[in-house]
């Protein structure tokens, strides 16, 4: 039986990763994910694991690529500017079909930006990020408990589909302390016949690679990969609905924005407005069906984001513009208040009272 402990979100990710059998961590210092690397630096040597502070984010993600090619569970973590640096490596990991976990504890941007929480890497995380056609599976926790649970889930999905996954958190989720029930120990359960282990002179050599000079071959790898993605879109969508049964206003928010939004929905209900919350847990695959369904009985959406409005595009696509979508946002490290969200709910609900 696991114990409930009080932990920071960043530490919960680290402990959950270790419990998921991850014994290799590579990173480069950056705020606000610092506690994650510090936890790994303390724990890994005690359990026969590897913590290595790389010379750069670029080196760190390529060390991840190296371990991933041997089939072992491996991760790196960073925050927005650092994750931009990792994009080349992430593209190679996706192109070579390797499982790995990348954690982004987001901060405000662009450029050096700031160190306060943000969700402005949504596009980068969900649309590819690096060069070429690819996706990551992107999970967005909204509690310290989910920081732990979704870390384990990321490793499981990465192995299952042989692809990189991203845990997309933000500075608040990383720094916040909450009681958490740590996940049970787990590990790799799938066969990895493609992994580099040395041939032992028993088989043909394995090659981990993303280079295909014949365009017909490269095209085929792209089509095959997107076939896999369509299976993921069918089977792995996760979201939470709150008071959505009879909702007329659907608030869509993930991560810290969803927590703020839930308070606003409760207050709206008190004031007689039928508001509900749809919280995507997988940002890719996006819960498009759930949004589409909501569009059938809601008269408006409110997209609450810590960005200039990125997820709102997916809401508009999924709802097929059946009803208006309002953006309720703060940016640059600022967080919308429940009052601001409530005002947006009232605004879109207004007139029809």
């Amino acid at each position: 039986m696991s114990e409930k402990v009080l932990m920071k979100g960043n530490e919960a990710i680290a402990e959950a990763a270790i419990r998921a059998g991850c014994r290799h961590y590579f990173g480069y210092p950056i705020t606000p994910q610092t506690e994650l690397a510090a936890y790994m630096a303390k724990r890994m040597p005690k359990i026969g694991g590897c913590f290595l502070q790389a010379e750069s984010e670029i080196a760190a993600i390529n060390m991840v690529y190296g371990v991933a090619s041997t089939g072992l569970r491996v991760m790196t973590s960073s925050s927005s500017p650092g994750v931009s640096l990792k994009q080349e490596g992430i593209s190679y990991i996706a192109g070579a079909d390797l499982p790995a976990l990348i954690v982004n504890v987001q901060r405000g941007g662009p450029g050096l930006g700031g160190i306060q929480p943000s969700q402005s890497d949504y596009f980068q995380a969900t649309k590819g990020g690096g060069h070429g056609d690819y996706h990551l599976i992107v999970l967005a926790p909204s509690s310290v408990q989910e920081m732990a649970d979704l870390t384990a889930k990321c490793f499981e999905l990465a192995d299952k589909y042989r692809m990189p996954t991203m845990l997309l958190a933000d500075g608040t989720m990383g720094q916040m302390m909450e009681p958490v029930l740590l996940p049970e120990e787990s590990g790799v359960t799938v066969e990895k016949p493609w992994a580099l282990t040395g041939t032992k002179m028993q088989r043909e050599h394995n090659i981990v690679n993303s280079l295909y000079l014949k365009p017909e071959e490269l095209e085929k790898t792209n089509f095959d990969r997107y076939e896999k993605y369509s299976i993921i879109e069918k089977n792995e969508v996760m979201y939470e609905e709150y008071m959505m049964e009879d909702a007329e206003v659907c608030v869509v928010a993930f991560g810290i924005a969803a927590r703020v939004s839930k308070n606003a929905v409760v207050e709206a209900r008190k004031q007689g407005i039928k508001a509900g919350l749809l919280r995507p847990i997988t940002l890719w695959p996006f819960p498009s069906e759930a949004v589409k369904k909501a569009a059938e009985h809601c008269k408006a959406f409110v997209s609450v984001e810590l960005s200039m409005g990125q997820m709102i595009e997916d809401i508009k696509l999924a709802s097929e513009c059946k009803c208006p979508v309002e953006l309720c946002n703060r940016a640059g490290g600022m967080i919308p208040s429940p009052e601001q969200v409530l005002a947006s709910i009232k605004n879109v609900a207004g007139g029809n009272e």
Partner: protein
Amino acid sequence: MVVFEKPHALCDVPLHYCPGCTHGIVHRLVAQAIDELGIEGDAIGVAPVGCAVMAYDYFSCDMVEAAHGRAPAVATGIKRALPDNIVFTYQGDGDLASIGMAETVHAATRNENITIIFINNAIYGMTGGQMAPTSLPGQVTQTSPYGRDVATAGFPIKVSELLAALDGPAYIQRVAVNNVKNVKQAQKAIKKAFENQIQGKGFSLIEVVSSCPTNWGMTPQQALDWVEEKMIPYYPLGVYKDKTSEEGEK
């Protein structure tokens, strides 16, 4: 009677290298070392971006293709994951000494227990002959059409000397493959670089001064002469660092 055989660690496929290119010789020397040490079954090679990008098709051990310059980081990951396997990278000068300089220096300073084979032919071959970090002063290339001007393009990087200044690395040697005597020397050096890893001595890098007749605009023989007359005087051959006989190394 067979007097000369293809090493088992070299796949039986045609190599794509240009006529007169010395990559073929160095591939053979690497494969021969792997054969002689009986490590093919444990070896994992990391291919670069550059002319040797398809080395993964040429060595019969497990292979991975790295992003440009990142091979030492990829090799670090593999070696940390599988410390009992033998991990090597095979990289050119643009890959190792330009875009990948940080990865090279830091793998060396950590004394990662890996083997690096570094081909210095003073030019970017695959992309058609641009100036490399190791191009000689005055050397004409596609991107230094009036000759490398050290006032604006800086000086060539002497990788072996630079890495030897670090406390970390175990073994650094520069060799050449322009004549039989030098090839014999290179053969020994490459084998030692693998032996060092087997014995847990740490980071070994062998810089191989090589030729690129195609992009130098020379015949193979002229190119080998240019190695002797121009390259080796700038890049003297020899052992630049050897901690392998010291006690108490990792």
